[in-house]
């Protein structure tokens, strides 16, 4: 095609025209119908139009591309200026006025032509100016109506009803006005057109009076292009709406005028108002709809069932898909039936669609059925068109159906509730009870410790550790071994721990300021604590909890009886008694000997003190007995350790009893209890102390013995007596020696066993 150079004004003008003709929004091709109508609006003869079409190349292409369109427009301008149509003149002609189009009329006529493919409508355009024949009258009416806005009447009344009137006039005409508004609002260059059209207005105004008469004609013409069922429809609206033309058109003019002159924003607003307006149902229309409604459903408050509505609207010959969409839009409450409002909305949408309006995605606000409870503004036209359109979707949703909102609300609530329930994960907190338990135990322990202030720290840590270990059995798997050991011990046999607790009590009491030696020291504090502490911590606490500090001994006593040590029982029964007797006997003897022993053996000082202590304590025997039994229990509970100890102790006691039973000399008992205590001390203390103690014992024994007199005179008797004494001493010493050796062996064995156990427990302690 020939290259075309356009001035800026021309460019803008042509682009606006192209947009106008671009019905399908293709941005590339202008629909032939519109283009042709546009060309016809240029007041050119058909021949000229055809010629132009041919020249621009559209005939060849079969459609109007943008370039072809521009060329055609230029040619029209040339033709209008009277110049001959030449392709060469496209670029050569300078200062060419813009092609003039009588847009208003053309638009409507084009619309009309498009809607009703009647060749009749393509009559000579010139007929528009003079009073057109009957057929054309409706067009003229419509054009008049549209052109009216261009009349420079200044009535700044944003009357939204004005454009509505055009639809009222006849449904087919409504799109015309709409299109016109749209077009005029879209381009700033449109201003020129009103100026152009103005010249045409006066004649049209004159023709305005004609419309009234033209209605009948128009209505007469409306039936042919319309289906039968629509005849009645189209008949009434035109006749009813025409009278309202004047005010409406005047208002339209103001509206459009404002559009043309106002700024772009205003134009947009007006444009939007132009969009919204078509959806408004005027009273006339509404009345018509109501009448139609009555034909189907006499009761205005009733419903039209879907099937009946389907039949009715199918008569409009609209595609089922579009009818389905119209139904979706209009059936507000989605109940499958149409109320009066819904029916009117649907009808209006059908009419609009019939007239070329595109169906909106959402129901326009003006068409929404008035729902009293949900939306007050439903059905009220809003000056802000965007709001009308944007608001409609928002309102449609809540207004959809009374039940829907509630349903919609329920689901999110359910979701939330479900989510909430799903979130909850009970987290068991094991720490606290054990912690609390530990704290309690510690408190009790502290209380008990307070009761026994002299209790060495050693038992404390073991106790704490034991308790912690016990708690750790739940929490800390690391220390399970020791815990398990202790806990199992404690749980397995409550008696033993109790006994050990009691022994601990004993030890606590025993380890009073007097020293490490207990009155009747069965279990040495360190070792038995090592064993008993783990197992007996809980029980100690139990004892402490159950019994106040003062009554601990009693509690121990109470707890004590059920525990019956197996092995040393026989011996125990005898031992305690013997022990008691021994103690009883030994006490004074010891007391007597103690002073003697004291200077020589400082160790014995402790014993004497212990003896005194034991004497002071009335429950000594019982304690001793308990201790012994506890020893047995401890032996059973802690296994070898205790067993060894108990063995050692009963052995000690047996030896003591033996010694006591023999009771030979007062020397024997004293040393024996002393020895026992020594032995207990030995158990308490490292073994190293035994030897010096034994030596001391021997020394004491020896010391106790009166020195052998060496007098010659009276020698025989004295000698014999001394010999006798010596022999006795020898025997005693020998016996003592053997016993001590036996004890030494036992202690060594015990030591070995303890060491073995220590090593056995060491790995657990490390955990």
């Amino acid at each position, binding site marked *: 095609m020939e290259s075309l150079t356009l001035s800026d004004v021309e460019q803008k003008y042509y682009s606006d025209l192209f947009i106008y003709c671009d019905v399908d929004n293709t941005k590339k091709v202008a629909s032939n119908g519109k283009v042709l109508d546009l060309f016809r609006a240029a007041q050119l003869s058909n021949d000229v139009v055809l010629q132009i079409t041919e020249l621009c190349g559209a005939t060849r292409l079969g459609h109007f591309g943008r370039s072809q369109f521009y060329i055609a427009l230029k040619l029209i301008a040339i033709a209008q200026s009277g110049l001959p149509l030449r392709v060469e003149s496209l670029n050569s002609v300078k200062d060419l006025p813009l092609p003039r189009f009588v847009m208003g009329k053309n638009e409507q006529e084009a619309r009309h032509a498009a809607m009703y493919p009647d060749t009749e409508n393509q009559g000579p355009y010139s007929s528009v100016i003079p009073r057109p024949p009957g057929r054309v009258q409706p067009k003229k009416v419509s054009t008049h109506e549209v052109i009216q806005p261009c009349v420079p009447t200044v009535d700044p009344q944003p009357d939204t009803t004005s454009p509505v009137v055009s639809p009222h006039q006849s449904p087919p005409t409504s799109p015309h006005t709409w299109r016109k508004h749209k077009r005029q609002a879209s381009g700033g260059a449109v201003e020129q057109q009103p100026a152009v059209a103005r010249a045409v207005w006066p004649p049209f105004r004159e023709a305005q009076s004609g419309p009234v008469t033209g209605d009948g004609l128009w209505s007469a013409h409306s039936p042919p292009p319309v289906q039968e069922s629509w005849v009645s429809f189209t008949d009434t609206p035109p006749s009813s709406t025409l009278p309202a033309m004047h005010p409406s058109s005047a208002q339209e003019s103001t509206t459009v005028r404002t559009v043309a002159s106002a700024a772009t924003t205003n134009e947009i607003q007006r444009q939007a108002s132009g969009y919204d307006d078509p959806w408004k149902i005027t009273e006339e229309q509404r009345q018509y709809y109501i009448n139609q409604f009555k034909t189907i459903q006499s009761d205005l408050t009733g419903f039209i069932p*879907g099937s009946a509505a389907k039949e009715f609207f199918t008569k409009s010959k609209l595609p089922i898909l579009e009818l*389905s*969409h119209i139904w979706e839009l209009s059936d507000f409450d*989605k109940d*499958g039936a149409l109320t009066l409002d819904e029916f009117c909305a649907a009808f209006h949408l059908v009419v609009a669609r019939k007239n070329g309006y595109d169906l909106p995605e959402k129901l326009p606000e003006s068409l929404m059925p008035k729902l009293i409870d949900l939306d007050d503004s439903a059905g009220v036209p809003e000056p802000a068109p965007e709001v009308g359109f944007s608001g409609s979707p928002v309102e449609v949703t809540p207004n959809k159906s009374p039940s829907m909102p509630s349903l919609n609300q329920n689901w*999110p609530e359910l979701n939330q509730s479900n989510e909430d329930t799903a979130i909850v994960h009970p987290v068991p907190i094991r720490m606290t009870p054990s912690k609390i338990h530990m704290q309690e135990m510690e408190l009790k322990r502290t209380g008990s410790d307070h009761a026994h202030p002299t209790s060495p720290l050693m038992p404390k840590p073991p106790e704490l550790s034991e308790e912690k270990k016990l708690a750790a059995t739940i929490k800390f798997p690391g220390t399970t071994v020791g815990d398990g050991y202790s806990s199992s011990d404690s749980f397995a046999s409550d008696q033993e721990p109790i006994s050990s607790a009691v022994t601990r009590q004993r030890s606590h009491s025993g380890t009073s300021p007097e020293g490490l030696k207990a009155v009747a020291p069965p279990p040495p504090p360190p070792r038995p604590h090592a064993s008993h502490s783990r197992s007996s911590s809980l029980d100690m606490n139990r004892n402490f909890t159950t019994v106040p500090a003062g009554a601990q001994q009693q509690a121990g006593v109470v707890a004590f009886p059920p525990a019956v040590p197996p092995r040393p029982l026989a011996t125990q029964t005898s031992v305690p008694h013997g022990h008691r007797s021994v103690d009883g006997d030994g006490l004074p003897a010891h007391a007597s000997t103690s002073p003697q022993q004291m200077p020589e053996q400082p160790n014995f000082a402790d014993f004497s003190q212990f003896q005194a202590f034991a004497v002071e304590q009335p429950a000594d025997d019982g304690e001793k007995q308990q201790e012994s039994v506890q020893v047995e229990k401890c032996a059973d509970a802690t296994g070898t350790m205790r067993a060894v100890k108990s063995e050692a102790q009963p052995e000690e006691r047996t030896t003591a009893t033996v010694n006591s039973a023999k009771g030979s000399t007062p020397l024997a008992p004293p040393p024996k209890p002393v020895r026992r205590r020594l032995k207990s001390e030995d158990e308490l203390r490292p073994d190293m102390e035994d030897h010096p103690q034994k030596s001391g014992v021997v020394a004491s024994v020896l010391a106790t013995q009166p020195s052998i007199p060496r007098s010659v005179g009276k020698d025989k008797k004295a000698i014999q007596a001394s010999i006798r004494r010596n022999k006795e001493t020898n025997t005693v010493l020998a016996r003592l020696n053997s016993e001590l050796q036996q004890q030494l062996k036992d202690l060594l064995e015990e030591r070995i066993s303890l060491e073995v156990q220590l090593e056995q427990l060491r790995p657990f302690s490390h955990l």
Partner: protein
Amino acid sequence: MAVCVAVIAKENYPLYIRSVPSQSELKFHYTVHTSLDVVEEKISTAGKAMAEQRELYLGLLYPTEDYKVYGYVTNSKVKFVIVVDSSNTSLRDNEIRSMFRKLHNSFTDVMCNPFYNPGDPIQSRAFDSMVSAMMVQSS
């Protein structure tokens, strides 16, 4: 969150099927088709005693390495199938249920339209928009 949404009629032909990535539509079609077997199995076993209200939500039909398939059946044996991408954060069961609920409601609206003939492909714009909203949420 859905990658593919399908509505299958009682006679097991699709009334509506739509996928997000258009290039692998065939794969999704195949997936939906295979899922119908699982759906049939579920409704046959569960619906023996029709007196008891059969659960409409079928749950996860079967998972694959890329996606999971959920099913839902109406009382009129119309099946909804949703294919969800596994790469997304695993959707909660409630979310899937809500999606099916929305589908069911929109489908009901379509059914209520007198201009819709049951058995026709669903061409409702409202239904399309609802499905788009469901699928736009996903990647």
